């Protein structure tokens, strides 16, 4: 049983290894044994034989996708994480979900949205080690009544080169196993700092929205409100399903939160740009 922010998951698996990995990495998370789970995630073999012979994991649970591609047992930890993503993406209705990372400082929240590889997860992890509180790297939860962003601090999924950059800073104890050659390349998970876990129920008002883009010459651009709105609806799994409250919440967000697109060649350059933009943000 695992609680991340407002959501509780029960994770079942035909194999012990992914569960052991999860237990180690989430060891400092709240103990919610006996609680009622919002979602169940199940890692299942395709058939009885497939449990043992070239085992392949099908991710299922309360919400599933019938033609999901199977994953290897070696990537079981990733499968469990993706399973939780899937439950949230398909089933969460209490908040507007944004595919974005978020970090908090002085009660105000920086939200970063963009593709895998844009740098939003890495940036969030690095900022989390530099005086910011990590709120999440995958989903930012927008409270439709208050306009606040709520935390969803899962293991941070780092890919390829970002792995070494971050692992060097946080040390082995807070890093998961290296998962080679997944669909998105090499992946390693990072455990959020103690304060991020301890404060997983503390939200904050969004103050700045960034569209990061790693691997380009440093640049900052304004983004029109119409474009921001359109991209955020694309980055939301439940905007349509939530109806008018989502429209009100997202339009409020777009009108009240300044947005910039930032390009950067390196993590250090990105941090500097973020800190500068943050200090200039009213």
């Amino acid at each position, binding site marked *: 049983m695992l609680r991340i922010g407002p959501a509780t998951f029960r994770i079942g698996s035909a194999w012990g290894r992914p569960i052991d990995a999860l237990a180690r990495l989430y060891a400092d998370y709240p103990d919610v044994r006996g609680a009622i789970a919002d979602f169940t995630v199940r890692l299942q073999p395709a058939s009885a034989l497939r449990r043992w012979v070239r085992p392949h994991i099908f991710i299922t649970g309360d919400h599933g996708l019938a033609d999901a591609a199977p994953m290897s047992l070696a990537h079981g930890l990733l499968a469990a994480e993706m399973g939780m993503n899937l439950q949230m993406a398909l089933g969460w209705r209490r908040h507007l979900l944004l595919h974005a990372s978020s970090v908090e400082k002085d009660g105000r929240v920086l939200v970063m949205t963009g593709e895998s590889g844009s740098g939003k997860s890495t940036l969030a992890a690095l900022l989390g080690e530099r005086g910011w509180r990590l709120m999440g790297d995958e989903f930012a939860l927008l409270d439709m009544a208050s306009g606040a962003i709520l935390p969803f601090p899962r293991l941070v999924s780092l890919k390829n080169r970002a792995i070494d950059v971050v692992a060097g800073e946080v040390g082995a104890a807070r890093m998961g196993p290296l998962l080679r050659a997944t669909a998105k390349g090499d992946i390693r998970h990072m455990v959020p700092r103690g304060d991020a876990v301890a404060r997983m129920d503390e939200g904050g008002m969004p103050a700045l929205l960034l569209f990061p883009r790693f691997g380009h010459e440093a640049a900052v651009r304004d983004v029109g409100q*119409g474009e921001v*709105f*359109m991209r955020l609806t694309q980055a939301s799994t439940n905007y*349509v399903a939530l*109806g*008018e409250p989502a*429209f009100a919440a997202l339009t409020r967000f777009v*009108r009240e939160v300044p947005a910039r697109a930032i390009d950067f060649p390196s993590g250090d350059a990105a941090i500097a740009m973020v800190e500068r933009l943050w200090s200039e943000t009213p």
Partner: protein
Amino acid sequence: METAYRRDEEDAVSACVLDDMVLLYHRRSGQTHMVISPVPEILERMVDGETVTAAAMHDRLARDFDLGERAAAVAEIGSHLDALVALGLVRPA
């Protein structure tokens, strides 16, 4: 026979003006639309329950805007009204 259009209470939209476009949430369908002129101006000048033709809508708009040559403008307004009908924001009368 001119096409007439109408909008009823049930067609109501919730509007949000952004700096570069207008967002409409259509309550009946749950759909969100991003729109630019002249759509917001046309919707503003429709009255719930009343029918209006493209020509009449043209004349309402012409009080406040420069629409250019009349025949072309009426045709264009008709196209916009047809687009609104296709989305369910306006009905054929």
